[in-house]
């Protein structure tokens, strides 16, 4: 019977590794929300001397690719230094799974962000980071590199969907080169809002569609 995912994805979906919680973890983070349909919680145990991840666990509320990516990303991060783990990309996670359907890449991005957020949580607790940088157009652009264009499975910056970004006193405007009736218009708008709305200095996020 044909399955929608690679054998590796199916394997990790059915038998996810590192599933569960760590009691009194050294760091933890939750990315996503039930509202967006995917949510990942990542728990870390870190060796304070070597700054190495000695144990990692995750929980997933989400689709098969979310579960499989949580499984693979925790496998990839285990035993790595914080800096090495931070550098793991969603492309690496996807490759390690034998590829994900383009429409599902945003789910792997979420798991990767869960890992990074947990590491950041550790760094903040241990005074290893500076304050969150101010939201500028460049920062918005960087965040949008994590919003996928589900048609092709690449981000909306790389696929040149973003026509304009402006940040004005906490009001963020993103103009997309897309028909408002496009199949994924609402999905992309929600993803953009989700990536930006939680920043401390962002007051509003507006996404406009203006197809050339």
């Amino acid at each position, binding site marked *: *019977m044909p*399955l*929608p995912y690679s054998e590796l994805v199916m394997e990790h*979906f*059915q038998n*996810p590794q590192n*599933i*569960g919680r760590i009691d009194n973890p050294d760091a933890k983070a*939750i990315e996503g929300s*039930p*509202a*967006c*349909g*995917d*949510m*990942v*919680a990542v728990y870390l145990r870190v060796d304070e001397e070597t700054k190495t991840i000695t144990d990692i666990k995750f*929980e*997933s*509320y*989400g*689709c*098969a690719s*979310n*579960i499989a990516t949580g499984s693979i990303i925790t496998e990839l991060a285990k035993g790595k230094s914080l800096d090495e783990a931070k550098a793991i990309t969603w492309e690496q996670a996807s490759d390690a799974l034998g590829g994900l359907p383009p*429409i*599902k890449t945003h*789910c792997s991005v979420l798991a990767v962000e869960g890992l990074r957020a947990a590491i950041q949580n550790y760094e903040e607790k241990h005074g290893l980071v500076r304050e969150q940088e101010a939201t500028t157009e460049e920062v918005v652009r960087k965040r949008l590199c994590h919003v996928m264009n*589900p048609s092709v499975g690449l981000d909306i910056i790389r696929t040149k969907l973003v026509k304009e970004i402006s940040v004005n006193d906490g009001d963020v405007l993103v103009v997309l080169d897309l028909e408002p*009736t496009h*199949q*994924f218009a*609402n*999905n992309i708008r929600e993803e953009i809002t989700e990536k930006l709305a939680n920043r401390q200095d962002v007051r509003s996020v507006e996404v406009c569609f203006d197809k050339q």
Partner: protein
Amino acid sequence: MSEGYRYLDNGAATRLDERVLEAMTPFLFETYTVATSQFSYSLGIAAREALERARSDIAASLGAASEEIIFTSGSTESSNMAIKGVPHALANKGKHIVTTRLEDFPVLNSVKALERDGYTVTWLDTDSDGRLDPAALEGAIRPDTVLVSIQAANQEIGTLQDLAALAAICKARGVVLHSDATHTYPRLPLDVSSLSVDLLTLSTELVHGPKGVGALYLRKGTPLHKWMDGGFQEFNLRAGSENIAGAVGMARAVELVTPEETAGIQAMRDAALEQLLAIPQSILNGHATWRTPQNVNVSFRFVEGEAITLHMDLRGYALSTGSACFSRALEASHVILGIGGDHERAHGSVRLTFGRYNTLDDATGAANALAEVIERLRAISPLGKD
């Protein structure tokens, strides 16, 4: 399909009944001509007779006259034809349309297309079971209302509308009423001699008839703009070579649906619902009794539907979910959101729809498998534990 695989998505498509295929086959290999005028060759005349017999059989199944049945390529086309064709024909009356937020995509997106073209739309809300209050319809109708479109039953949660009450209001106010009956016809009684609906979207692909054919019931005298230009087929409203095998198959599919069979399907529904609603943190989507006989729709908290459907597929059950991850547009079910559910309820919703080839064992087996899958997914979920 492999042995032992249980298909429980009959609300999306159904297996063709061999008896339907048998009725269709002569019109693919023997009487395969177009339906010609009565002054041509005998094969074409025979094709016309078959087409008209199918038309009159379908008309009779809903108390209509033959000339009130227009064959189309399916429910999607029938709804497009109604939603776009009536306002176009009534351009002098106004540009206001009334519908509900829960309609299936052919109606929903046809109305949105008109909205973009400058029509004003009143999108009616339903209650939390998906039922429309007739008083809300009464209040929404204006002097410039050209069309009301309200589904007979919902595609996802199976809620039946009180079509008789809604139709009476439209009749009293002199407004054209269209209803998408895809999910009730021909399982539930529908009689246009007593029900004052003006247009109905009909098909039989959900009752083991062929895909690619459907019909629009158009009450005599209802204004409708010509839909498809071409020849003069289908009363000069819908051009194109007639799908005679399809029409014959549709009529045969209607004939094969019996009240006994429907009662059996309803027993499957009730057995599955009883088991699924016993699972903790589950909630019924749709009305408990104003419900199509084939539909089960339940949401489970803390879990996501795509993962459920994949686990169920691995266990040999095909079913669907209102989760965004399952949808082509990556959007959560507009129906669950429309009845006031949140995204989590939509993402965690599961729909089972039963048909002729299912058994009571399929229903209870699926419910058992679902209970196991949900427990498993809840064990790995960050939600619902504190």
